[in-house]
């Protein structure tokens, strides 16, 4: 399908939208509503109980009920001020929720932005230039991105450990170390995705810019990137979310409590050591999930485009 066909599709959908709304009777649609309601109930089931637990004073899982039995906001205060009581002692469990949250956002945003930028540069080169070694380069790209970084966690860990012993700024416990590792892992897939898209941008546009005297760099920044903006956002968002959810490599590189990302930090709340602090955990989940969910819902329309290209959200 070309851009032309896509345009036709857009026009058609606009026409559909303008067509008069058919009169549907309950007899035609009751089963549709039934399916919809059941689906919504199933979707919301865990969410509702998380909300209920977050506002309930009883901390354990067994205290969770449909409505909070003892409504309170103490769970939010505890998780935000790092004062989740530790059942094993008189003090608090070690938690740094806001720190974890900030760490995660920082790492995910930087990774997403750089992935898009560097991926786009590579994709542009492969899409617009014909040079010696291009085919080899692309085969390399294709092969390399087939190996999940997850499987190399041992090697990555040892590399970061040893290199970090010399250059601390990319060593264990450093965010920059984690980001560069993520970049290495994500670039293959994303460059490939972007390459496919750049090929659909007509070269006539570059050509006319070149005639006007633009350099390749100017064409990249001034013509191709703005045209590709929606896809860049999709790739960035998907990279953002997969970084947000990443567990294994983060667990190998980030070693101390204050440095963790949210998945690592929150995972400790369901471990035994934390005596299952379910209330604060639920409160933290809500705080962490709501912004991400809102972002996703609002960019949903754009994301569908990326998804149909085979990008899978974690």
């Amino acid at each position, binding site marked *: *399908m070309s*851009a032309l066909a*896509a345009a036709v599709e857009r026009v058609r959908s606009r026409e559909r939208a303008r*067509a008069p709304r*058919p009169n*549907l009777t309950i007899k035609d649609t009751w089963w549709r509503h039934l399916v*919809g309601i059941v*689906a*919504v109930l199933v*979707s919301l089931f*865990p*969410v509702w109980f998380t909300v209920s637990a977050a506002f309930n004073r009883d901390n354990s*899982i*067994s205290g*969770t009920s449909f409505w909070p039995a003892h409504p309170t906001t103490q769970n939010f205060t505890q998780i935000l001020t790092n004062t989740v009581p530790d059942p094993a002692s008189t003090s608090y469990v070690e938690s740094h929720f806001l720190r974890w949250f900030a760490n995660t956002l920082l790492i995910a945003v930087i990774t997403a932005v750089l992935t898009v930028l560097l991926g786009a540069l*590579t994709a542009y*080169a492969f899409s617009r230039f014909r040079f010696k070694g*291009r085919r080899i380069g692309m085969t390399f790209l294709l092969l*390399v*991105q087939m*190996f*999940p970084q*997850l*499987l*190399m*966690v041992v090697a*990555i860990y040892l*590399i970061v450990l040893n290199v970090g012993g*010399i250059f601390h700024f990319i060593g264990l416990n450093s965010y920059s170390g984690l980001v560069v*590792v993520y970049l*290495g892992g994500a*670039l293959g897939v994303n*460059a490939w995705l972007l390459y*496919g*898209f750049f*090929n*659909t941008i007509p070269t006539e546009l570059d050509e006319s810019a070149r005639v006007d005297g*633009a350099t390749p760099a*100017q064409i990249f*920044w*001034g013509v191709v*990137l*703005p045209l590709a*903006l*929606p896809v860049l956002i999709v790739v960035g968002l998907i990279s953002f979310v997969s970084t947000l*959810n990443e567990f294994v490599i983060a667990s*190998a590189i980030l070693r101390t409590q204050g440095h963790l990302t949210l*998945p690592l930090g*929150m995972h400790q709340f*369901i471990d035994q050591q934390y005596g299952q602090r379910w209330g604060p955990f639920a409160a933290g989940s809500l705080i962490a999930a709501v912004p991400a*969910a*809102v972002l996703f819902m609002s960019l949903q329309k*754009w994301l*569908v*485009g990326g*998804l*149909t290209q*085979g990008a*899978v959200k*974690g």
Partner: protein
Amino acid sequence: MSSTAAASTAAAGAIPKGALGTRAISAFSGTAGRVMKIALLSFSNALAAWAAYVLADRQDWIPLAVLAAVTVAIDVVYLGPRRSLPAKFMIPAGLFMIAFQVVPIVYTVDVAFTNYSIGHIASKAAAIEQIKVTSLQPPANGEQYTMGVARSGGRLVLILQDQTTHKNFVGDGSGLKPLPPGSVKTNALGVVSAQGYTLLKGADLFSLDKTLSTFAVPTTGDKAIRPLTISSAVEMTPTLRYDRKRDAFVRITDGKLFHDDGKGEFVAGNEALEPGWKTTVGFQNFSSILHDPLVRGPFLKIFAWTIVFATSVVFLSFFTGLLLAIALDKRGLRFQRTYRSLILIPWAMPGFISLMIWAGLLNDDFGVVNRMFHLNVPWLFDANWAKVSCVLVSFWLTVPYFFLVSMGALQSIPAELTEAARVDGGSPPQIFRRVTLPLVLVATSPLLIASFAFNFNNFNNIYLLTGGGPTQSGQPIAGSTDILISYTYKLALATGKGQDYGLASAVSIIIFFIVATISAVSFSRTKALENLN
């Protein structure tokens, strides 16, 4: 639908709006762009210069050479001729990919042929030093000296007072000499003063730490007095002697020879000296995968379950998603948008949070699911139920995705087609089976494969929900719900077998091949290969 169709739809919409952005961005490509280029390049060179300094300081010559070559290459590409144009665009990403994707692959292969594991971490030289230190025995009666450190004629000497006899000595590398009684004064913190010697204190003393740790005052035979802390020393008897010629340790008491067994240990019979060291062991790790029942046994079982898991998640989710899309894709349906938005919630929430929440809800004694529905299902405790839970929760997470894409696929089917089928007298189920479903499948099959490949390696869905558990009897590493990727993770980092990097790398390599085959199939199906040209 080609793999890029939807993206081009999105782009087409953006063209008219792009003007402002275009202008903003192109502002950076003139002089400003050049300034930025120079700045970035200077930064990378500065970083390289600093790194070179550190490496030279550590005498790491090979990394230094690599660094220099890469830096020069970068400078040449960006400041050099037009010919290197494509390279300008590829270098930034290429560097990261080589450093953190290619090098780890190579390194994994390298480690797979070594015994790198707990007890075999350091180099042989370090291990020999460590063994020498641990082989020293303090006297059985626990006798010690109170110690002070002084300089005498530029040489370092130890001022020593025997804690039981209170006799005074001065010692250096050549031996021990007595000092007159009363010439050395001590308190709880060590030697306070020594007649004729100026004691080293504070920073002067602390800076000698590395010298002191190897300082030895020979006494009788092999024995020597060695500093213990900043204020005490003890006479140590070595129990092992390293014989450089034979590359072996000799036990002094019985003359027993501990020789290098080629597997990173000094052994004599069934006795081995600790620590060992890291060394190449050939195919030993691979052969233990083939022969070690602990590794080989569960491998096939896990492989089968990984496939079952990925397949069932994809198919259940796809058909449910399609069903939902068919039910709700009706123009004029009330609350359509509400349904749609709410159904998307599981997809919009960060996956790790949903998974951990489900782990709590499915707790079989106290979890909401069992209490709400008055069930007594061991959701996470029983091997089979845990598998069901893994599939169900992953299903819950994946349905909205397929709902979305099915919705898109359904809407892209031209109304004329179904209309024509209806005119030809097809019943709704027939139209669905003959027209709608095939078209939807054509559009979504690349996505089904991609989703399969994704779930095949879906570490989070397993690890955060069940941790791979429950364990199986007689099977210490692999749990009932472990998929290949979580199994490798456990082998490498989280098992009782300790951190056996060598073995884990060998298993990784085997899984590499399995995963690569699946990826290759998925890619050839998504026609990505056609894009090569």
